[in-house]
């Protein structure tokens, strides 16, 4: 995966919709199902369950579909970044900590986000211990 990220040409944020599966490695059925699930849920971020489900999924995974990057990372990132950028309360930062870690990974590896639109991650915030 490190090689994949090194060799991946970052896509610009505006070009995310042009990405297709050919940019990525083949997925297993489990990975395809997770990819499909979170692409569907990314259109429903107004429902709290969608973000909770994404955060919970990312607790144990590097990327949306597992340990490999997929098109879902781009599609979901495009929808989540504007929402995540509004999280400033410690409560939100704690609740969605795994999404924030993932957004930071994607904006530093797969997607070229204009500096002003990037999620600013404050590593000095003291978050309460996570209760699973």
């Amino acid at each position: 995966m490190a090689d994949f990220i090194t060799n991946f040409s970052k896509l610009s944020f505006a070009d995310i919709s042009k990405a297709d599966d050919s940019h990525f490695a083949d997925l297993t059925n489990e990975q395809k199902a997770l990819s499909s699930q979170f692409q569907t849920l990314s259109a429903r971020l107004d429902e709290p369950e969608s973000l909770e489900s994404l955060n919970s999924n990312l607790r144990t995974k590097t990327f949306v579909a597992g340990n490999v990057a997929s098109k879902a990372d781009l599609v979901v990132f495009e929808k989540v970044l504007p929402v995540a950028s509004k999280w400033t309360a410690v409560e939100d930062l704690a609740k969605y900590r795994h999404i924030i870690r993932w957004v930071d990974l994607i904006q530093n590896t797969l997607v070229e986000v204009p500096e002003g639109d990037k999620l600013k991650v404050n590593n000095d915030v003291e978050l309460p211990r996570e209760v699973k």
Partner: protein
Amino acid sequence: MSALYASKKSTLEALATNLKLSIASSAFQKQVSVSVNEDADSTALLVDKKAGFELSEPNAVVKYLSSDFTDASGAIAFEESQLYPALKANSADKISQIATPAYFEKAEITAAQIILFSALYPALKDSKSTSETTEIAKWFQDFASIEVVQSGIKHALSITTLERPKAVN
């Protein structure tokens, strides 16, 4: 082997979810029927404990069980963008008012057909075959008559409790 769990809500969205799971299970994973999860806090619909894998979105579950992740007809995209909001609003009338294109020429068990059928079920379940039956209603009736679909519907209705529609004055 994955365990399948029903939506516990009493809404049309829950009915559509339980139809999707029950028909897909009846068609592709007969050994496991959809049951009610005893963990009250869990919203997972499919759980594979051994693999540490779970899904909570019904269309992904149907695709996974059928190993069919395509949407060549565009029916799944239509279901997610047009029918889902009406299901979420818990209104069979709203579903009826949506003009659904005739996506399929022939009724057959595919992920897309299971998903579209289940979302239309609250609106079309009582439709009768007449000379004026629309193409979509004709397809719906043909699909409903497939044996594994019939057993899936029966099972879904047995595990879903629907609230009575509110009286309109």
